[in-house]
C-alpha cells in the first residue's frame, strides 16, 4: 500500500530580509545576513521549504554592565566599556553572525548619556567589525526618540536592523529607518493582536512590510517561554495562511532574559556549577524557540553561542 502524501502546502511564506550592506551596496560590511523565507512550520514538510538558516546576534552593550552574573561577565570583562573591542571579540572568537548593539547607557536610569556617546559607539563598532549590526534602543521612549535618529544617521548606508518600535511609539524611528534605509524591528508585549497592529501602523507610514522583523517579546525557560513559543508559532501559522501583515521573520532576545533567571545567575552550588547553568539556560531557551519558528537569536554567553550554532548546523 502506498504511503499517502501528508505534507501540507501553504499559500504564504515568511518574507526574506537582508541585513548589512557591502561596499558594492554602499556600506562597509564584509558580510550580509539574510533571514526568513520559510514556507512551512519548522520540521514539517519538505526540507527545501525551511527557508534561510536562523542566525545568532551577540549582545554588545555601549556601557559596562553592572548587574551581569559573574559567570557571564567573566567572558567579557576585558572588553567592558570598549564596545568596539567587545564586538570584535564576539565576532572573531565566538562566531557571531551579527552584533546586537544595545544602547543601555542612554537610558535616564543607566547613565543618561547623550548623542555624542552613542554616535561615537556606533562609529567605533562599524570600524571594528565587518558583520551587519542590530541597533537596539534603551527602552525609554523619550530618550530613544531623541538619540536613536542620530545613531541611525551615523550608520546610514549600512542597512542595519534598528528598533524597536511599539504601538505607542513608532513614528519617529519608523520615519528615520525609512529615511536612512534601515530594516526595522516592531515590538509587541507578548500579544499577537498588538503585534499585527504595530505592523499595520508602520506600513501606514509607508514603511515596506518586507523590511520588518518582528519582536514579540521573549520569556526564558521557566519564565513564560510557553507564551513566547505559542505566539511565535501563531505568527508562523498566520504567515502560512497568507496574512501579509504577519509574514515577517522574527527576533528573540534570549540572552538578557535567560540571564535574568535565578537558575542562571544565582550562586547556588547545590544546583550545579554556575559556569554551566547560565549557558545551558540560554541554549535551552534558544533551542525551544527555534522550534517555534524564529530567525534571529540574541545571545550572550560564548558557550550558548557555540551550542546553538551547532544545533542550527545539525538541524537545518
Amino acid at each position, binding site marked *: 500500500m502506498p504511503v499517502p502524501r501528508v505534507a501540507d502546502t501553504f499559500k504564504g511564506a515568511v518574507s526574506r530580509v537582508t541585513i548589512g550592506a557591502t561596499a558594492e551596496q554602499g556600506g562597509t560590511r564584509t558580510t550580509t545576513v539574510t533571514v526568513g523565507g520559510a514556507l512551512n512550520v519548522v520540521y514539517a514538510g519538505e526540507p527545501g521549504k525551511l527557508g534561510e538558516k536562523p542566525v545568532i546576534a551577540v549582545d554588545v552593550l555601549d556601557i559596562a554592565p553592572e548587574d551581569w552574573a559573574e559567570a557571564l561577565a567573566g567572558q567579557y570583562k576585558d572588553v567592558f566599556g570598549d564596545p568596539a573591542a567587545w564586538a570584535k571579540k564576539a565576532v572573531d572568537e565566538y562566531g557571531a553572525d551579527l552584533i546586537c548593539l544595545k544602547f543601555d547607557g542612554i537610558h535616564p536610569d543607566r547613565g543618561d548619556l547623550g548623542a555624542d556617546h552613542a554616535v561615537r559607539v556606533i562609529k567605533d563598532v562599524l570600524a571594528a567589525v565587518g558583520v551587519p549590526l542590530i541597533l537596539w534602543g534603551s527602552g525609554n521612549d523619550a530618550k530613544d526618540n531623541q538619540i536613536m535618529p542620530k545613531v541611525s544617521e551615523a550608520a546610514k548606508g549600512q542597512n542595519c536592523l534598528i528598533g524597536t518600535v511599539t504601538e505607542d511609539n513608532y513614528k519617529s524611528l519608523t520615519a528615520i529607518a525609512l529615511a536612512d534605509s534601515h530594516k526595522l524591528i516592531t515590538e509587541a508585549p507578548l500579544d*499577537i*493582536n*498588538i503585534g*499585527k*497592529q504595530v505592523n*499595520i*501602523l508602520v*506600513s*501606514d507610514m509607508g514603511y515596506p512590510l518586507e523590511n520588518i522583523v518582528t519582536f514579540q517579546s521573549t520569556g526564558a525557560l521557566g519564565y513564560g517561554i510557553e507564551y513566547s513559543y505559542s505566539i511565535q508559532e*501563531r505568527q508562523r501559522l*498566520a504567515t502560512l*495562511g*497568507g*496574512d*501579509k*501583515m*504577519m509574514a515577517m521573520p522574527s527576533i528573540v532576545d534570549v540572552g538578557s532574559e535567560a540571564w535574568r533567571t535565578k537558575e542562571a545567575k544565582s550562586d547556588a552550588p547545590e544546583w550545579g556549577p554556575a559556569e554551566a547553568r547560565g549557558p545551558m539556560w540560554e541554549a535551552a531557551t534558544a533551542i525551544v524557540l527555534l522550534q517555534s519558528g524564529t530567525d534571529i537569536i540574541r545571545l550572550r554567553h560564548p558557550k550558548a553561542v557555540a551550542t546553538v550554532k551547532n544545533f542550527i548546523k545539525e538541524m537545518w
Partner: protein
Amino acid sequence: MISIGERINGMFLDVKKAIAEKDKAVIQDLAKRQTECGASYLDVNVGTAAADQEGTMAWLVETIQETCKTPLCLDSQKPNVIAAGLKAADTSMGILLNSSPLNKKSDAEVLDKYLEMAQSVGPEGKIIALTMDKNGVPQDVDTRVAIAAQIVEKVMEAGLEMHRLFVDPIVLPVKVPDAQQQPNNIIAAIGQIVFLSDPPPHIVVGLSNLSQGSCERSLINRIFLCMAASHGLDAAIIDVLDEPLVDALATAEMLLNKQLYSDSYLKAYRNA
C-alpha cells in the same frame, strides 16, 4: 475568503454599453477598482446583449489584461465562449472557469469539456461546478449534496487536486415565491459538501443572485455571506466595491478566527 469581483458582466448596464461601444476605459476602470478593493479574481461575463459572444469574451479579456494582472474568472455556460476567453488570456497568474453543471440534457459531457480546458492551462487552471444536472436546479439539500459528490468524484478521476474545484450550490433569489427555504438549504448543503473529501473542494456562491429584485439588496447579501461563511463557504462572487459588504466579511472572518484580530483589522483585510 476568495472574493471574485462580479462587476464586469454584460448584465450591468454600464458594461453592456461599454461592450456595445467598445469603450475600453469603462472596463479597465472596473478591473482596476475591483483589484484595489481586494478581488482575488475578476469575473468576466459577456451578458446576453452581444451577438458575437466569443469575440466579446476575447475583447473583454484583452481589455482587462492590458491594465491589470488579476487572475480572471471566465463566466459562461457555453464551452466555446470560455474557450475563446482562454485563448485570449494570459493564464500565468491562474484562471477560473465558471461554470459547468454535472451534465445537461443537451450535453452529457459538458463538465468534461470544462475539466479539459482547466487542465490545458496547467496546475493553476481551476473550475466552478454547479450542483445542477440534466434535471435542472435541485431545491432540496440531499440532491444538491448528491450532485456535488458526483462532481467531486469526476474531478478526482480527472486527476485534479481538490483545491482546483469550486462547488457552487446555486443561490436563488429569495424574493421568488416559496424560495425562502433556499438559504437554509444552501447552508445545510455547504455544511455537508465540506465533508465530501479531505481536503474539501472550495465552495462558492454567486451572492448577488440572492437579493435579485429585492429591496435592501446589500443588507441581504452581507448577512447571508456571513451566515454561509460560518458554515464553510470560502469563496464568493461578490460586489467587492460594496464597502459594508467587505467590512462585514472581514469581521466574520475575524470572528471565525480565520484572520488575526488587530485594531485595524478592516484595513489589514483589504491590504491583504
